[in-house]
């Protein structure tokens, strides 16, 4: 069995850590990670709970392939009810923390209640204890990790922590592990902060933490999988060399790069902030922004970006702590910090991204919220006096200043930290918030890519590209090419993507493997690791079950089909330029068909037959 079969339950109010056996029937029905933790959350939590109240629970969870030899088998997730959306929140991270948790002998850690004072959880193999974190409160993620490692005299302790953003209630605060890998979206860090939990530190040395069902078959299956990744042009060459950032120019040429709060769909500065630009030597110091690529535990792709800034850039000139190499911008961050605001200074984007890592907040939601603030400023609704400085579109200084203020919870950064939905509503322009269910869009325009628009509208955690990545068929031709403006077949394709993604997110593997792997490559690895019959059909049924379980949670939380929508700008304001010129979202055509292929009523509720079939 690739599960450790152990659950650590931490009651923060009572200060207790107890062990309980993993519910193996649920493991059979929901696999692990995203699916399994969501099952626990649904079973134990009132869907109407205030996300930032002690009654909300938060679960750190691994998958059966986490900490194994499977390529990319290092993922873990944080599952809770999200404060940004009021919907289910599941945020996935790489790095080395997840594997370490598995090596310590735990499938998941369930946090309940809230601590009366700041604490951190220390796990050394089978021992767990809550320790005073008053000396860590107010520290950044980077400081916290260093202090904990020094304090316990062990550089191999892995730390997942919140920065000041999580402490200050930034609604899109994330949890950062290994300095720059993050469970970044949906505000899981704000939930952690509300519980007065600063960090989870773990050291795992057990060699008997889990047992593979069939080690010989597992080695063969994972070896075969690695060969597929190495031979594939995307996972073997494209992603390692250029990272996700290579998409910047692709999406811009396609006319689907949201720019200046989605006013435009092409950005004149795209070339300056894309993956290629990170390789080019700067005229200022003759060095490239990109130092090298980086890999998470067990990963043979290594898409991560490690960057070093120009030390003379205005943002870091007198701040040597930012002169070293650290996590560079990925595509989503570069888009949100750049194109979404009209900012084309790669060094400034890198600095803001460093701040997001250092103090733990989501660069997508932050950058998109700055874009909304810039539009409010452009319209004269927000003024220099209210913000504290001028904030026109394209203001590098303004974006940088807001990143600093949001990280520290000061000035206008407090308003930016609440996200664009609340910002735009406060200033009387709710229609200018580029969000679904309160979460900001990532880097693809739902007018330019019709399937992505549907994916955003129906994502269970609010606007998200990682729940059904329709960019693959609509842009990359993986597994088949679909025209960006077509609607035919998109609802069924999206359902298949969503269900498969739920399986991958529940396995311990990284979603990026699916640029090369199909379910036929993944299934043998799960089959060899986990006892029982894990056919492709059964795995897809599990994926569909997870999707519907998340949907049921959201419905019980009070969301309805009216929340499966897009902002009026995407429905009514045509794309102004490029090959998608004139396009608006055709969500009204696709959504009814999507409900139908999902086996839901016209109101978006799973029918009794669907519930029975899935056992939800």
């Amino acid at each position: 069995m690739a599960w450790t079969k152990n659950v650590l339950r931490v009651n923060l109010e009572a200060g207790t850590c107890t062990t309980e056996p993993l519910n193996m029937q649920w493991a059979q029905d929901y696999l692990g990670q995203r699916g399994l933790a969501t099952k626990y959350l649904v079973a134990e939590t009132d869907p109407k709970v205030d996300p930032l109240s002690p009654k909300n629970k938060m679960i750190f969870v691994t998958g059966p392939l986490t900490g194994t030899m499977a390529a990319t088998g290092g993922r873990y997730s944080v599952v809770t009810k999200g404060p940004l959306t009021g919907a289910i929140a599941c945020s996935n991270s790489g790095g080395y923390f997840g594997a370490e948790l598995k090596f310590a002998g735990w499938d998941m850690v369930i946090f309940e209640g809230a601590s009366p004072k700041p604490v951190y959880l220390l796990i050394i193999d089978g021992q767990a204890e809550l320790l005073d974190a008053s000396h860590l409160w107010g520290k950044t993620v980077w400081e916290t990790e260093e202090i904990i490692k020094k304090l316990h005299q062990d550089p191999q302790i892995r730390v997942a922590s919140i920065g000041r953003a999580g402490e200050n209630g930034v609604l899109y605060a994330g949890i950062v592990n290994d300095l720059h890998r993050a469970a970044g979206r949906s505000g899981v860090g704000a939930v952690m902060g509300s519980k007065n939990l600063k960090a989870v530190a773990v050291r795992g040395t057990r060699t008997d933490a889990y047992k593979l069902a069939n080690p010989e078959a597992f080695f063969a299956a994972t070896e075969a999988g690695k060969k597929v990744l190495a031979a594939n042009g995307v996972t073997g060459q494209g992603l390692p060399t250029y990272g996700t950032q290579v998409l910047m120019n692709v999406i811009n040429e396609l006319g689907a790069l949201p720019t200046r709060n989605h006013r435009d769909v092409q950005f004149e500065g795209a070339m300056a902030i894309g993956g290629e630009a990170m390789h080019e030597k700067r005229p200022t110091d003759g060095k490239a922004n990109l130092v090298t690529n980086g890999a998470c535990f067990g990963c043979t792709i290594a898409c991560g970006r490690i960057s070093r800034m120009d030390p003379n850039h205005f943002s870091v000139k007198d701040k040597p702590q930012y002169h070293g190499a650290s996590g560079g911008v990925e595509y989503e961050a570069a888009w949100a910090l750049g194109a979404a605001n009209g900012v084309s200074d790669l060094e400034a984007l890198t600095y803001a991204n460093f701040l997001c890592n250092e103090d733990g907040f989501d660069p997508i939601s932050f950058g998109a919220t700055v874009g909304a603030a810039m539009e409010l400023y452009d319209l004269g609704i927000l003024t220099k006096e209210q913000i504290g400085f001028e904030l026109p579109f394209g203001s590098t200084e303004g974006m940088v200043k807001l990143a600093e203020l949001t990280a520290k919870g000061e000035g206008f950064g407090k308003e930016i930290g609440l996200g664009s939905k609340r910002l735009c509503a406060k200033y009387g322009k709710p229609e200018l918030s580029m969000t679904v269910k309160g979460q900001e869009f990532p880097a693809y325009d739902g007018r330019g890519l019709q399937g992505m628009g549907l994916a955003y509208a129906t994502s269970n955690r609010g606007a998200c590209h990682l729940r059904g990545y329709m960019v693959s068929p609509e842009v990359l031709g993986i597994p088949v090419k679909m025209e960006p403006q077509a609607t035919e077949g998109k609802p069924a394709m999206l359902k298949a993507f969503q269900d498969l993604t739920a399986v991958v997110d529940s396995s311990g593997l990284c979603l990026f493997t699916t640029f090369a792997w199909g379910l036929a490559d993944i299934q043998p690895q799960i089959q060899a690791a986990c006892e029982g019959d894990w056919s492709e059909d059964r795995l897809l049924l599990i994926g569909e079950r997870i999707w519907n379980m998340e949907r049921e949670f959201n419905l019980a939380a009070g969301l309805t089909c009216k929340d499966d929508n897009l902002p009026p700008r995407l429905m009514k304001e045509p794309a102004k330029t490029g090959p998608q010129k004139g396009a608006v979202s055709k969500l009204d055509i696709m959504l009814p068909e999507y409900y139908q292929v999902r086996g839901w009523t016209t109101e978006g509720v799973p029918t009794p037959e669907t519930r029975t079939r899935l056992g939800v």
Partner: protein
Amino acid sequence: MRISLKLFASLAVHLPAELRSRHQQELEVAPGLTVLEVIQGQGIPPGQCAIVLVDGVWVAPLERATRMLAEGEVLAIWPPVAGG
């Protein structure tokens, strides 16, 4: 006639050195030239051309030998890449 050729990521090496950072070259080509003929004429391995767009519109592999370019069109090409 004039067209613009944009080569990104590892394909930029097929541009003159002084143009690589701009990723773009203006070409004077014979009318009626196809996408595939431009690719071959520039010494770009056709098998490396994963994403091929003309004015932002996808040109499928089987269409590249017949899709003729017109004055002022922009041909943009990437090797196998992806993101998220």
